[in-house]
């Protein structure tokens, strides 16, 4: 028996060691591409250049049991042949290539993966550097819990960024850039017609949005002064087309409201030209001053045309056309002045003053033609101005190599001006509202390094805001942070604790939130080719907020919304290399929100704070969303030839809600591939 106990203890100890063990395995990404590359890391010499490359081509497959929409929302890998990953590096060996000295290309998921990525760099020392980043994301989200799934989206977003720097190593540099961000695809939206108490209808949208940005700039260095200026132009357009089949059904079968035709167009065009300037001067590494100034002038012009035919909720025949046009503008000015003083190597003192002013204006003319009445013509105007001034002072003192102290104090003041009016005719009566709020926050902390591989740090922050803008904003808050890190060649261990508590109270309502995070992770690499890692994370959040709402025309006040989340995450991984020929990886991630521990839809919570007798059942207990999400993964990669690898992998996803199981799914994904280097 004693032997058995000892055996158990040793297994527990080994398990604990493994759990908190300590290495550098990558965080568990999706199963493919294979991280191991084909070919020699030294590359091959061709003329004056050295070339390294590795390309992985394979077949990805999947099978889903359960809610496919939720799977596509969370994971979205499909079937088919892919260029799972690839890299190419071409370097001039003497750094004096004729046209270029470096070419770098990395690709991922090309061919039809939902997440595709490609980056390219070409540069010639001292002459130019060109960077390209291209990305594509297939986004699918049924949003079942939002609007009952009627805000479904299936879109593709593509983004590309081009940046060219001329004379990159000189004291006078020139920069040019171009970015493009486009989104297209199908979506659903909802709306009401003829009456805000009428039925809700779902309609289709063909989403077509695109943004382009052009920018030029220059950087100048003169003695110890660096000056940089950028001029940019951003343009955005939205040509989404909305429509619905003839005679769509509403969401409520008992509603008399009906719709036989809708047509909606709302094209939008906008541009945002901007300036950025940055100046920095440094002397003998002791005193640095830097200033930054930005200005932009955002503007959007829009037209809204909505035509509908049907019956209102009382059964009367209706046709209505709404025409609306107008502009929105947002000039933004930002300025920073930062002073950094390092009187000795032990002291660093900084002060930053920031000024930010944004003013959002919008005005539009609304016209409505309606067979039910004489029609409407309204003028709308809105103004929202935010001006923030903040000053932050930081001090860091390191009296000894093993100990250091730091602290900062911040004062921020914000003025918010607001006006909003809708009138039948000009001049509109605009009564601006204005309010100020001020926030003071201080942080202090220390860091220790009693021995070289061990680092410990503590910090605490306290903040006070005299008049936050929202009931859930930060008002009286404090935060604690602690971290311990131990890192040597074979082991690493990291643990940290963070908490954030905020109370935002007024005479009738109180919002309080408490968040606590504790995590530990580590890795162990006992010898070359063998690595383990593992970790645990606990994220707690509870918030308590005052509510006021109508239930059957009765105003319910001083009710409470209590939200509770207790999120536990574990992850572990092991990697082995067998005779430098076979690489095996196995990993596991499990995330579980245990909430308040319940496993059924029955309510529980904090009866001590839920005292309102007219509370809806919805709010009588804690709002929780207990869910478990786990994903084991396994991968093997075999060297077939010096330049060829065979790879295969499998990853399983299991999503399981505890209360309603409408979105549950389990899915197997996998791939088989060859990695080749030419």
């Amino acid at each position, binding site marked *: 028996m004693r032997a058995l106990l000892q055996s158990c203890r040793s297994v527990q100890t080994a398990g604990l060691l493994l759990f908190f063990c300590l290495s550098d395995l990558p965080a568990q990404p*999706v199963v493919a591409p294979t991280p191991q590359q084909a070919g020699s890391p030294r590359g091959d010499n061709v003329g004056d250049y050295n070339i390294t490359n590795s390309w992985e081509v394979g077949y990805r497959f999947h099978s889903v049991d359960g809610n496919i929409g939720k799977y596509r929302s969370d994971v979205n890998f499909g079937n088919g042949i892919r260029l799972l990953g690839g890299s190419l590096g071409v370097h001039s060996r003497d750094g004096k290539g004729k046209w270029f000295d470096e070419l770098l290309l990395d690709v991922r998921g090309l061919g039809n993966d939902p997440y595709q990525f490609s980056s390219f760099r070409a540069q010639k020392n001292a002459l130019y550097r060109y960077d390209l980043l291209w990305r594509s994301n297939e986004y699918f989200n049924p949003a079942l819990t939002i609007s009952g799934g009627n805000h479904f989206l299936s879109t593709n977003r593509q983004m590309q960024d081009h940046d060219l720097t001329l004379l990159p190593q000189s004291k006078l540099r020139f920069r040019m850039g171009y970015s493009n961000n486009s989104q297209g695809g199908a979506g659903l939206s909802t709306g009401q017609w003829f009456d805000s108490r009428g039925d809700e209808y779902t309609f289709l949208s063909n989403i077509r949005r695109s943004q382009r940005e052009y920018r030029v700039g220059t*950087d100048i260095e003169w003695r110890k002064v660096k000056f940089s200026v950028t001029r940019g132009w*951003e343009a955005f357009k939205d040509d989404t087309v909305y429509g619905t089949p003839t005679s769509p059904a509403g969401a409520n079968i008992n509603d008399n409201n009906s719709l036989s035709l809708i047509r909606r167009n709302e094209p939008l065009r906008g541009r945002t030209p901007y300036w950025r300037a940055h100046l920095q001067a440094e002397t*003998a590494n002791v005193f640095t001053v830097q200033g930054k100034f*930005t200005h932009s002038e955002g503007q959007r012009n829009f037209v809204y045309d909505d035509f509908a035919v049907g019956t209102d909720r009382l059964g009367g025949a209706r046709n209505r056309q709404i025409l609306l046009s107008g502009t929105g503008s947002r000039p933004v000015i*930002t300025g920073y*002045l930062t002073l950094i003083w390092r009187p000795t190597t032990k002291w660093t003192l900084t002060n930053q003053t920031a000024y930010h002013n944004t003013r959002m204006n*919008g005005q539009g003319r609304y016209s409505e033609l309606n067979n039910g009445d004489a029609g409407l013509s309204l003028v709308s105007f809105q103004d929202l101005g935010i001006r923030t001034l903040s000053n932050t002072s930081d001090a860091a003192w390191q009296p000894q190599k093993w100990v250091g102290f730091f602290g*900062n104090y911040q004062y921020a003041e914000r003025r918010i001006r607001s006006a909003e009016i809708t009138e039948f005719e000009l001049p509109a009566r605009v009564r601006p509202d204005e*309010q100020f709020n001020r926030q003071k926050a201080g942080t202090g902390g220390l860091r220790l390094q009693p021995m070289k591989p061990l680092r410990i740090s503590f910090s605490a922050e306290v903040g006070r805001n005299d008049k936050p803008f929202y009931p859930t904003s930060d008002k009286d808050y404090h935060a604690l942070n602690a971290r311990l890190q131990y890192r040597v060649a074979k082991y690493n261990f990291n643990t940290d604790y963070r908490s954030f508590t905020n109370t935002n109270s007024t005479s009738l309502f109180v919002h309080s939130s408490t968040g606590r995070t504790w995590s530990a992770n580590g890795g162990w690499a006992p010898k070359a080719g063998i690595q383990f890692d593992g970790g645990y994370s606990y994220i707690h959040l509870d918030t308590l907020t005052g509510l006021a709402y109508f239930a059957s025309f009765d105003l319910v006040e001083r009710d409470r919304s209590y939200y509770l989340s207790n999120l536990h995450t574990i992850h572990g991984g092991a990697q082995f290399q067998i005779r430098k020929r076979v690489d095996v990886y196995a990993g596991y991630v499990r995330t579980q929100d245990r909430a308040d521990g319940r496993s059924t839809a029955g309510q529980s919570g904090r009866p001590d704070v839920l005292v309102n007798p007219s509370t809806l059942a919805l709010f009588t207990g804690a709002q929780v969303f207990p869910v478990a999400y786990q994903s084991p993964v396994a991968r093997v990669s075999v060297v077939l030839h010096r330049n060829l690898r065979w790879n295969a992998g499998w990853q399983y996803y299991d999503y399981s809600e505890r209360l309603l199981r409408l979105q549950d799914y389990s899915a197997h994904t996998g791939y088989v591939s060859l990695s080749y280097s030419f």
Partner: protein
Amino acid sequence: MSFPRAIPLIFSLLAVLSACRLAAQPTGAKSATASDAYAGSNACRTCHPNVALQFFRNPHNKTGVLANTPVDKAGCEGCHGPGKKHVDTKGGKDSIGAFSQMTPGQALDACLRCHSKDQNRANIRLSNHTQANVVCTSCHSIHQPESNRSLLSKRQADVCYGCHNDVRAQFSLPSKHRVNEGFMTCSDCHNPHGTNAATWKMGRRPHLVDTGLNNEQACMKCHVDKRGPFLYEHAAVRVDGCESCHSPHGSVNARLLKRPVILTVCLECHNGAGSFGRQADGVTTQSASHNMADPRYRNCTTCHVRIHGSNADRTFLR
């Protein structure tokens, strides 16, 4: 309290004046790094062939190739300092600038001798990372990088997860930004080298979040359709930022929302309480026609579809 509108100009003027004053000063006395103490990079190849043979791939190789690079910034000694003493004493970490022997501050100073020219590192001295002794060599590996592009020691997300384990957990949730999938990286939203104070919020939180087009939240870099300006702005987006309703790293809830159901996302602010909101008389409650006892009214965005801002309706109905 009122501040003049010319404050940005005053800032700029102060910066220009300070810069001119500093530029007029001598660039510093001749330091201990006298040129006669340098041995040249060729001397290093003799004892460090494993580094030297592969160094042509390293972006720092250009410092040894370009003819006009100052000797104190060229080749191996550009980072490690004069090497003649190291050669004369036949090695030893005490006779050269070995980064493994440097304090974090010394390592930072060594890198910033060349890498301070970029704007995105302008705030590195006051970043939370620097305060916590997380400096260049904590994330970058010059001689054994995972990629030659930015010389990070590992894939970027793995570098960050190494300390931010709780963030790794958030990216393991069902609803998340696609960082683990390789579509985006931490630095799409964060600047680990330090940022200016986030003026879309009051305090220093959130930490190290980069800015979009003009000091706006990093979210707007990609979600350009939410940028506006709109005729009717949802003030929450502009005053307290996207995190008012969303958890940017990951969430168990759809669309990164902070609550599992829509109505509490909205009602927790729209409760008419206190002196909150645009008119400082409480954020508007819904009207009596919104019967929360009827499940039909609990999905607020079914009707208020343009919740990020609208050009057609002040209550975001269209």
